[in-house]
């Protein structure tokens, strides 16, 4: 397992409020990591920094074998480098069909001219069908994404993430709005992906995290409070205090 992402000593301040405080984090490929922490701990902000949405005040974010800095790259460049993200609030293109949503996510050249001349190959079609089956939307391909249920939108966004075929998947609260069955399906899917990808999952649901069966990082007030197996961190006094104290 080689290091894929190395975040070191990053801090972010919003109007004087320190959302991320000297945070360091490393993940390899392949690896699965769960990130937990109370509301406002900075989990989403951490993903914002890695994907280029928010620029940290200090610290470094290094990527890949060459250790390129992600901080000098645009959101699009970071995504092209292989960082994919599923947002906490499902964000799909509601005005377009499920099929179209998957199509634009599909890993292909991203320039305007390539898009203009893009033809759907048999390969693309197969891939979209595979993904649609995986996310349970095979019979909804021609529906507008806007009319899907909350859970289905979650799945569609996961599908878009799969279509992108990134090296690192940042998955923010995937289980919200899902049935127990769907949650189990999601954990299975994520575990399968983690065999050859780097996967970071933020989730509040402890059962879900337990099923992921991976190393857990606990965030609190913008920095790492504890790290280790789920049982290990849940036995940590400071973690107990943080979770009981909220």
């Amino acid at each position, binding site marked *: 397992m080689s290091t894929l992402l190395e975040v070191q000593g990053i801090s972010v301040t919003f109007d004087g409020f320190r959302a991320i405080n000297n945070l360091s984090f490393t993940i390899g490929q392949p690896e699965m990591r769960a990130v937990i922490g109370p509301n406002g701990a900075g989990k989403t902000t951490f993903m914002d920094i890695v*994907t280029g*949405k928010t620029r940290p005040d200090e610290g470094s974010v290094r990527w890949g074998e060459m250790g390129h800095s992600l901080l000098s790259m*645009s*959101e*699009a460049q970071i*995504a*092209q480098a292989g960082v*994919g*993200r599923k*947002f906490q609030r499902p*964000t799909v*293109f*509601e*005005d*377009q069909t499920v099929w*179209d949503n998957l*199509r*634009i*996510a599909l890993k292909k050249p*991203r*320039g*305007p001219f390539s*898009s*203009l001349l*893009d*033809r*759907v190959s048999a390969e693309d079609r197969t891939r979209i069908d595979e993904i649609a089956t995986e996310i349970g939307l095979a019979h909804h391909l021609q529906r507008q994404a806007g009319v899907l249920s909350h859970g289905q939108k979650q799945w569609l966004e996961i599908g*878009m993430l799969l279509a*992108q075929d990134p090296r690192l998947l940042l998955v923010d609260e995937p289980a919200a709005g899902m049935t127990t069955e769907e949650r189990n399906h999601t954990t299975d899917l994520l575990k399968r992906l983690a065999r050859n990808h780097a996967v970071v999952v933020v989730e509040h649901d402890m059962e879900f995290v337990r099923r992921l069966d991976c190393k857990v990082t606990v965030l609190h007030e913008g920095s790492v409070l504890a790290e280790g197996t789920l049982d290990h961190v849940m036995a940590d006094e400071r973690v107990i205090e943080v979770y009981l104290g909220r």
Partner: protein
Amino acid sequence: MEGKSIFTRNRSVPIFIGLLALFTLGVTILSEGYGTGALSVSFTKVLGMTLCLCLAALAMDLVWGYCGILSLGHFAFFGLGGYMIGMWLMTARTEAVVRANLAGNVIPPTEAEVSTATALQIFSVVGAEDWPWMWAVSDSLVLSLLLVVLIPGLLALVFGWLAFRSRVTGVYLSILTQAMTLALSLYLFQNDTGLRGNNGLSGLQNIPGAEGIGQDRISIWFFWASALALGIAYIGAAWVVSGKFGNIVRAIRDDEQRVRFLGYRVEGYKLFVFTLTAVICGIAGALYYPQAGIINPDEIAPIASIYLAVWVAIGGRGRLYGAVIGAAVVSLLSTYFTGGRAPDIDLGIYTIEWVDWWPVLLGLGFVLVTLFAPKGLGGLVDLIVRKDKA
């Protein structure tokens, strides 16, 4: 549905092209130049010009309705296209007149003398007598046609690059495009900028090389050219928005940040659409002003670009034919009410003069459409079509 031609993929394309062809045929049959003469030359010109405005509205729908960039500057590109072709028309026409005048001389004039006399003729109105630098290629039709495409295209490219790179969006971008338009029209109003200040360019209806041919025929030629341009642009626009490019552009309209996280450089896409539509507007303007006969900086006034957006809003965004319907209906009504065709209404104590009241009527219409038909006039077409299917 993929892989088929655009005619079967977008049902509005064959219908639109069919109607446009029928309309063109009808106008030709009724024209003075080639038909019964039921349509006057001036009305034929109005119809041809309307097609050019529809073409500009089509471009506006691409950039605003599909890509979400509310540009309030696209009529400036339209005007620039007009100026570019206008320089050639005016040069060639004036030169012909000058040659005819000098033909009576005992000693035949040299080329330099013709050129000097032509420049004097064109620029004496602003107190100048030399060719300004921007008229450098005005004696070449090919180069002037190239400028029709290049100048609006380059201006859009530079402006768009600066604006999109700094991520100026929404109302700020609209204001910026208005500022660009205002600056351009103020610049053109100056007498010493080389484009004859507020006199503008005139006599553009006189087509060099067609001196013996009456306006009855020329008006129909331009009508045909305008219809052809609109038809081609419609097919092209439908093609551009039908594939993956169209999906991405609409995605940018709805949530551009999300598109970035998929790895697309949003700025590149916006710049592409902004520049492409500016070029379309330039071409539309180059077809419009020879029919109008005159262009002056007033045409580029910021309000003109706002009207363009109003047409598209009334016609309905994001459906191509909506923009065409909106532009045709509103601009024809505007010609009717402000061109002295609508009879004033005498109420005894007050006379409704339509020239003054037309903007009020337009504003009212805009509000009514927004309230009762948010999808615009084009949305009403959908209702009819959907009923058909049921």
